[in-house]
């Protein structure tokens, strides 16, 4: 006979951990809270199947991971990628159409950056500006870009989750990089701060 799991304790012992786990992935507190709630509800439904071969936390985390993946799948279905979202980035202005080989538009040409650790990785404001620049990207572009660059998710997995052709994925990543580099140049490297 299995001892009964105390549900209150299950919440007290693991909900903060699960919340932080979800938050690190989705970066939205109310969404993270919803995901944790769904995780517990699913867990309670499958209590009989839980055979204590793993710890409670491992078990709950596995369910949460599934819920997060599910969220991305739903999210990408609800909002099919609209390629016009990319126009918001304005990156087509970065290059001229005059048939020249060196075709950076004058005001968008990359300038020299000071890449000393003091100005970059060891400066916490650097990350704040970086985060701001990521948030400036259109929602869908931001999700795709974050999953690839920050979470290190495999590009083919991302293409599947968001129903993107390799070509479209490539265009999104290219525009996002152009835009992020420009944003960091204007707001950090050429700005009179730091």
């Amino acid at each position, binding site marked *: 006979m299995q001892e009964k799991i105390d549900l209150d304790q299950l*919440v007290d012992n693991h909900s903060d951990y699960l919340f932080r786990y979800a938050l690190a992935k989705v970066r939205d507190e109310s969404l993270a809270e919803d995901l*944790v709630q769904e995780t517990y509800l699913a867990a309670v439904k499958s209590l009989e199947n839980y055979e204590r071969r793993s710890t409670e936390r491992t078990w709950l985390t596995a369910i949460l991971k599934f819920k997060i993946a599910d969220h991305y799948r739903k999210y990408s279905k609800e909002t099919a990628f609209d390629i016009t979202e990319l126009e918001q980035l304005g990156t087509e202005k970065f290059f001229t159409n005059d048939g020249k*080989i*060196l075709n*950076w538009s004058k005001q968008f040409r990359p300038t020299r*950056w000071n890449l000393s650790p003091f100005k970059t990785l060891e400066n916490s404001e650097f990350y704040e500006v970086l985060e701001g620049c990521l948030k400036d990207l259109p929602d869908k572009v931001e999700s795709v870009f974050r999953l690839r660059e920050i979470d290190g998710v495999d590009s083919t997995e991302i293409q599947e989750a968001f129903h993107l052709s*390799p070509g479209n994925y490539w265009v999104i*990543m290219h525009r996002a990089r152009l835009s992020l580099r420009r944003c960091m140049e204007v707001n950090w490297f050429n700005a009179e701060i730091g």
Partner: protein
Amino acid sequence: MRKKLTQFWNGLMLNCEDATRLSFDVPTQLELTFAERLQLSMHRSLCLWCRRYYKQTKFLGEAMKSYRQTSSEGDFTDKKLSDESKNKLKQKLKDSSK
């Protein structure tokens, strides 16, 4: 003659837009051909802006990788689910397990 030569030259060379596009995260289905790689390095050897673009964007990529390590723990260690939502959650679980 001169026009023809320019045309030939332009066909051989990538412009900056293409060079920046080919620089990163090429999907495996669309891997670069040998000719493209050659064109890319030729372009970069002539173009200071694209050299900067490559170096800076690569740098930002590395910064984002290290950002992942700090943000998965660092940023959120003090985050907690509020008591209010915990209690709501407990109540829901009770209701659903009845």
